């Protein structure tokens, strides 16, 4: 596995001119980015009324995920810390506006601006302290509180990110809840090492149900533990021999055949005492 980019350098240094151009021309990267952006847009659960909406793209980079928003007829504003990536976005003449800014410094927008927010492969950068005065917890909290305020009521924010470990997931989700968001983590294809994707789905209001993850097993595939073999027979519709149900069924059958049968009592199917 390749070294994680956030271990190499801060994002504004890692994504220099060479890396930004490489990132934006690699067809495999483009394909994956578009796929994840489409899934994030799906998880955003915008009302299906063909309305154009204003979406915030956090960590927009060169505008790959913004293109997906454009294809869905949405307006978008992007913010990214890498000048080189944004230069490529301007060069590609993306429809959305792009802003140079740091996620951890807070979102510089008016309250109630956006109908939704998506972020592709950006949130994990906030989990690292790239400068001496950086505190990941504080930066995440600042980011989430300012994001919460610039979303409209009932708006959602969907983050696809690459957590390094469960501690990072815990740190990110706890800061999001502290900022006032609801929601949780949706893991697509949890059993696949390559196809597994983490989506943090955050909601500003209401108690909507968390969306269903892709590729999760629908039903149990193991044999249930059974203590007694006798119980298997009930599945076939027959009671075990000598049991009360079995005896009652036998007596009923004899009555239907017209044979002489003793009546059913509470002593039916009980053992005789030694006296007889």
């Amino acid at each position, binding site marked *: 596995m390749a070294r994680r980019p956030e271990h190499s350098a801060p994002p504004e240094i890692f994504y220099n001119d060479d890396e930004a151009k490489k990132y934006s021309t690699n067809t495999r990267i483009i394909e994956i980015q578009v796929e994840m952006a489409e899934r994030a847009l799906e998880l955003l659960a915008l009302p299906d009324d063909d309305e154009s909406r204003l979406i915030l793209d956090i960590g927009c980079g060169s505008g790959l995920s913004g293109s997906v928003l454009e294809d869905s007829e949405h307006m978008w504003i992007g913010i990214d810390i890498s000048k080189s990536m944004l230069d490529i976005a301007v060069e590609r003449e993306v429809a959305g*506006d792009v*802003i140079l800014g740091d996620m951890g*410094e807070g979102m*510089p*927008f008016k309250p109630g601006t956006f109908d939704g927010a998506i972020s592709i492969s950006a949130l994990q950068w906030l989990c690292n302290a790239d*400068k001496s*005065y950086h505190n990941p917890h504080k930066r995440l909290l*600042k980011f989430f509180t300012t994001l919460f305020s610039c979303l409209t009521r009932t708006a959602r924010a969907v983050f696809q990110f690459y957590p390094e470990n469960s501690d990072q997931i815990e740190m990110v989700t706890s800061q999001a809840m502290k900022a006032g968001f609801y929601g949780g983590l949706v893991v697509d294809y949890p059993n696949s090492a390559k196809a597994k994707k983490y989506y943090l789905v955050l909601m500003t209001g209401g108690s909507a149900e968390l969306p269903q993850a892709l590729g999760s097993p629908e039903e149990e595939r193991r044999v249930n533990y059974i203590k007694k073999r006798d119980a298997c027979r009930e599945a076939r519709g027959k009671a075990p021999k000598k049991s009360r149900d079995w005896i009652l069924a036998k007596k009923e059958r004899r009555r239907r055949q017209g044979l002489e049968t003793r009546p059913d009592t509470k002593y039916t199917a009980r053992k005789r005492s030694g006296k007889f």
Partner: protein
Amino acid sequence: MKLSTYNFLTSVAIKGVKVGFPLKLTINKKEVVESEFNPTFVERILPKLDWSAVYGAAQVAELTEDIPAVQPENIVENELLLQKLHHLLFEIDVLEGQLECPETGRVFPISDGIPNMLLNEDEV
């Protein structure tokens, strides 16, 4: 940067700033980019806009004749005004200029159409 984006930008992320809106806009170089007129989207975005900031942007962009100083009633029925608003908000691209925080005087430069909202260590 479109002027619609200018209407949403604040400097509230700076430490000590309460509102940080509207930023003072200076345009050194701008460009007109044609885009398709969508009246529905202009209608939907109007409640999010601050009309005084829209008029202020119109003043800086030298389009004060198109935009009234006070927000009129029933803009939705005024197709001509919607078109002018569309032109002002979505078709004017600010390439070079600056944004100034009204409370601290902090200046954010705009270069290549990209506003630079990065802060220094002491401002976070």
